[in-house]
């Protein structure tokens, strides 16, 4: 009987610790995007390389459109470029398949991804992704041999 009690109490304690840990993790995620909104470079490369796949509209919100078929709107930290981006996406349906990327610097110091993601959220786009380039476009895309613009 005593043994059963210990086991039940231990299980409760474990569940409590797990919940607490989950809540701390969620609090630490102060980014405007969610984990589900991050798109792996390999997945995008696979889509681009397969013309039969439904192609997303890829916008570069950084200094240069390196990825094949992507549209350069300029660094989103510059208000004029952000306005240009706004104008371009305003023509799209809210459920448009959009991928944005910068790749100038690691996410922590990138000045462009946050304004672009915030704009997409403000405009109520429901199906956008941020390309997961935690280092930069060279380390996470070019060096892997993924498709680049001519």
């Amino acid at each position, binding site marked *: 009987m005593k043994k059963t009690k210990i086991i039940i109490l231990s299980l409760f304690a474990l569940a409590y610790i797990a919940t607490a840990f989950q809540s701390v993790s969620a609090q630490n995620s102060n980014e405007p995007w969610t984990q589900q909104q991050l798109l792996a470079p390999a997945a995008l490369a696979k889509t681009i390389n397969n013309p039969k796949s439904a192609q997303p509209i890829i916008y570069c919100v950084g200094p240069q459109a*390196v990825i094949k078929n992507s549209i350069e709107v300029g660094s989103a930290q510059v208000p004029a470029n952000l306005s240009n981006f706004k104008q371009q996406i305003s023509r799209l349906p809210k459920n448009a398949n959009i991928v944005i990327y910068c790749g100038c*610097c690691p996410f922590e110091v990138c000045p462009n991804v946050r304004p672009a993601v915030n704009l997409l959220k403000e405009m109520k786009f429901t199906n956008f992704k941020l390309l997961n380039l935690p*280092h*930069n*476009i*060279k380390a996470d895309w070019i060096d892997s041999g993924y498709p*680049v613009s001519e």
Partner: protein
Amino acid sequence: MKKLLLIIALFCINIPFLYSQTVGLEIGNTAPDIRLPDLKGAPVSLSAFKGKVVLIDFWASWCAPCVKEQPKLAELYKQYKGSVFNNGKGFEIYGVSLDNKKAEWESSIKKMNINWIQVSDLKFWTSPVAKTYNIQALPFNVLIDGKGIILAKNLHGNELDQFLRNLLQS
């Protein structure tokens, strides 16, 4: 006698290897040469600064930490430009920008009053020099001696200052 001739022959074959320095990216290697255009479009080689201690500074106007670092580099440049080191006379900075827009590159240089050599092929991360130097992130730098041999990599701020100070001829 045959053995002696063979030894002499093998020794002669190896002489060039004994005296040549490997070109590479490790400390002690000879840094790969770079030849890129400056703001006026004139090509400038890294090897043109042989004899001096040179900091190859990889940066870009769109890289916030790089821009933040420039005033410290200006300070070090002023301080060590005319110094005599154990392995070089004078200090130079060879700034290699990964910018892709000339106007932005130029305006940054002017805004920060950068007065050392600046080169760029304006190819962003697709620049061949980023591949040659295996640059994974900016800012990145390589310090070479008067013979072009890599002394240190990725030293910034006070660490770089201290390293240069230790190189000074006593």
